[in-house]
């Protein structure tokens, strides 16, 4: 094959490649436009339905100043309060992002944190993909109550919850034991917490 024929072939190959790339580029451009249109449409629908916008997650690092002297409660005093923008009901996580507890009292420069295993702790949670129950703390075991028997709850399913306005799931633990409730209508589930000894780790409050 002569040199001129070789050049002709390579030029033809290059033009094919360029054409393919142009097609791909156009397809991507159209995809971007489509996603932009969808995002705009989503925004309009949210406004129309009066949905609140998702907030960005903001964390405040805190430390434990002291504990409740009673061993029958799981309450700790942390070294931040209204001065750091904390509010009652905010949730605390450890450095791995696992749930530790929630704020039950906020003063000017300190707050009271109720740990997840406190007997008075309660929180609506999800188990696995869609089952819903009420997590309640306890000194013997942390349990989830009022799970419908028809819900497909399995051992080792993840227990999690979602903070309103935040789209991140916060993990609390895994299903350890499943029992049928005495009245036979609901399941009682024991939870193994992810954060076994949260007090040795740094604590963060989700704002």
């Amino acid at each position: 094959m002569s040199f001129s024929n070789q050049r002709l072939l390579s030029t033809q190959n290059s033009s094919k490649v360029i054409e393919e790339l142009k097609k791909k580029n156009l397809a991507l451009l159209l995809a971007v436009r489509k996603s932009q249109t969808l995002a705009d449409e989503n925004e309009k629908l949210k406004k129309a339905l009066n949905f609140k916008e998702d907030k960005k997650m903001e964390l405040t690092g805190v430390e434990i100043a002291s504990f409740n002297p009673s061993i029958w409660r799981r309450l700790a005093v942390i070294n931040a309060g209204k001065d750091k923008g904390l509010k009652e009901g905010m949730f605390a996580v450890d450095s791995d992002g696992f749930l530790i507890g929630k704020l039950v009292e906020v003063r000017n420069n300190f707050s009271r944190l109720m740990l997840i295993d406190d007997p008075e702790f309660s929180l609506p949670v999800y188990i696995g993909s869609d089952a819903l129950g009420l997590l309640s703390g306890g000194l013997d075991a942390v349990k989830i109550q009022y799970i419908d028997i028809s819900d497909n709850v399995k051992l080792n399913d993840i227990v999690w919850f979602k903070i309103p306005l935040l789209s991140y799931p916060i993990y609390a633990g895994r299903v350890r034991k499943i029992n049928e409730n005495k009245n036979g209508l609901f399941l009682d589930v024991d939870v193994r917490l992810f954060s076994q000894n949260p007090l040795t780790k740094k604590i963060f409050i989700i704002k």
Partner: protein
Amino acid sequence: MREKNLKALLVLLIFFLMDTAKPFAYSLITEFTFLGVILICLNYPLKISFLFSAGFGYLKDVICNDTTNFSLFEFSIAAVLIHYFLRNFHGKAVKILIFLGALLVHIIVNNFHISRAVYFFSFLFFIHSSIIFLLVNRLFQQWLYNEPKNNNVFQ
């Protein structure tokens, strides 16, 4: 006598700090302040025991933010009852029985207070508290009571 009272106050203060600082986090299931109150009640006259019990009960309620004054009543009543039993019953085993009885009543009362029956936790509390009380008694006996080492609280 004043020195002995100051020693009791210091011991109770250290025990109270141990409860609020929890150096062993929640792996040690006991209440040092409660053990200290029993220790003082078993070895001091009613007036001093009642004063310290009520004082530290009130302090615990303030720190716990407990508006029912649960510990104030519990500790004060415990001081009076312990002295009642000490006055009316005699014998080697009386102090041991009083300690175990106080521990059991404390467990039952706290189960009611938190409105839950926590069996395994209560069992652990009983075991840990008994061991800690024996250790504390042994460590502090000579310093606190100013008595020979072999003359412990249960004798």
